[in-house]
């Protein structure tokens, strides 16, 4: 029997992590590493794209991290991309293959991928936003024929900050994915677009009614991308965001992620704009 991590939490304590092992580590950039986490025998994450786990580094604390691998490719293990941003992520970056960490989750409701079937998909990740989106993109790629056009507009600060370069190249090579990259500041090697992510929109043609847009990135990005998307006529219910907040529990108790009456960790972090447009604190 495969046990959901959840089940174990329900039994003893919702705050008790499952001890898992770091199976592989890959440097993506100077700041980001990709971790493959091996769960103990019999456990499976059974996640949906857009969900996250609480990662515990014992002796330091816990942080919410998106699941970066797609459920279609999980096999008692999953991947996550971690940026060195402070205490916990800093110590995590010093860990080696074979070291143990704690995992709780998956949490959040994720993207309702069944509702995306047959639709054109427009992905707009900024910076680290590609981490959770990769899970969704790969899930769709493995089931490509069930979706319409797939467009990825991806932005990073500099070419060196681009995450998943090899996978980007792989997507780019496919003719069923339209990948467009931009960086805020170019360098000698960079031949592509320079400018913030919204500069990619003017050239973009969409079939608005049939398009689902998924936007994940730093908080400042949402408002601007939203205006572009609404400007293209994409319906409010088709524009999805991941609203990441500070979180200390992942289970709707600690209060940190609250946006008015909504707990982002439980009701989100993936939300369609239609659900949150009245929430002053959301975007």
């Amino acid at each position, binding site marked *: 029997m495969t046990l959901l991590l959840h089940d174990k939490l329900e039994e003893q304590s*919702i705050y008790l992590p499952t001890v898992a092992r770091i199976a592989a580590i890959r440097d993506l950039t100077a700041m980001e590493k990709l971790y493959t986490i091996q769960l103990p025998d019999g456990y499976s994450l059974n996640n949906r794209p857009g969900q996250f786990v609480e990662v515990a580094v014992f*002796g330091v604390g816990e942080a919410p991290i998106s699941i970066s691998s797609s459920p279609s490719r999980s096999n008692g293990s999953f991947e996550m991309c971690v940026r060195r941003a*402070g205490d916990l992520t800093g110590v995590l970056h010093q860990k080696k293959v074979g070291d*143990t960490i704690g995992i709780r989750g998956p949490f959040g409701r994720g993207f309702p991928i069944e509702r995306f079937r047959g639709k054109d998909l427009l992905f707009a990740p900024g910076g680290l936003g590609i981490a959770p989106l990769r899970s969704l993109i790969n899930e769709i790629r493995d089931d490509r024929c069930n979706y319409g056009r797939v467009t990825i507009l991806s932005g990073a600060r500099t070419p060196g900050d681009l995450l998943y370069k090899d996978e980007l190249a792989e997507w780019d090579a496919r003719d069923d994915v339209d990948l467009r990259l931009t960086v805020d500041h170019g360098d000698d090697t960079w031949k592509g677009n320079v400018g913030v992510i919204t500069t990619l929109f003017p050239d973009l043609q969409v079939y608005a009614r049939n398009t689902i847009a998924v936007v994940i990135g730093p*908080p400042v990005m949402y408002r601007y991308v939203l205006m572009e998307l609404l400007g293209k006529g994409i319906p409010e219910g088709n524009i999805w965001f991941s609203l990441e907040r500070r979180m*200390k529990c992942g*289970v709707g*108790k600690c209060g*940190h992620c609250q946006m008015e009456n909504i707990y982002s960790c439980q009701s989100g972090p993936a939300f369609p704009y239609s659900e949150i447009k009245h929430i002053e604190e959301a975007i």
Partner: protein
Amino acid sequence: MGFRIMSKTAFPDWVDGLCRRYRVVGPKPVHGQYVFDDIESAEELDLGYSQTVLPPKKYILPPRETIFRFDGASVEAVVANSDRWTVALGVHTCDMHAIHLLDRVHEHGYQDQHYQARRENTVLVSIECLKPCTPFSFCKDMGTLSITEGYDLHLTDLGEDYAMDIGSEKGEALLEGFAFIHEPTDEDYRRVNQVMTEKWPNFAYRLEFDTTELPSLLTVSMKDDAYWDELGERCLACGMCTNVCPTCYCFNMVDEVDFSLEAGDRIRQWDSCQIDEFALVAGGHNFRGPRSARQRHRFLRKGKYQWEAYGLIGCVGCGRCAQACLVHITPVDTFNALYHRHRQGHVEEVR
């Protein structure tokens, strides 16, 4: 389950008996104020207390609590299952209502086993308030001036006697084997009813509108930036208001390790939405940076969000925050001011 009568002369013996069997906590005087603390005999207890610094919530959701222990690759949850009850004596009805809200939050969605274990271990002996406890309380407005359920035992002061309403088997167990109680007579019913009718006029309504309007008032007032800015300018962001509040439950998690760096505890600790870093995230974005946004969050959470999320208003009118606040930000003043500003059209103006 009805009620029993216990004379006040027998009451100390009963309390002393409880002290021998259980951990008993109750209000004790300290430096002119009161705190809930362990009681070893009836003498230490002062049921005529005004208001305690911290609400009795601290026995169910302690300020600091070990959630689990870790040692290398093993983890073990620490859940406070205990055979020994904690009997909280003399809980005011506002605090009872607050515990009711906490119960609802912690059983909603995921069950919080740590909360529940302590909750199950706690026996609540509440007491009917017959006069306002402090000039800051506004329980009558918030509908928390009395209580009809949720207690294990509920005391009403009848002068010479206590009426003891039995609310649960736990409550009944506290009376078990104690000889000096009797079934109520008709006269006792009359006395209880009299006390209950006489108490109401002792309390004043302090909100100038009906509490049922609170959520909708706050929905409009959300945009009253000028008002929130004024609060933000005064607010010290000291967090006292939330830390003394019986309905606040936000927390932080911190780790403590020994020198092996391998073994230690994960500890849950009360947090406050009023401090700078409560909604700060990596990358430096603060979702509630200005103090005005934090004050607004606090009041809307109490008067609106909790209502929308859990069907209960998040403030029970105990007045602790009002007494604690050094710059005199109080729910009564805030709600009344918003009400007047709304009536005078301030909010529309802002728009």
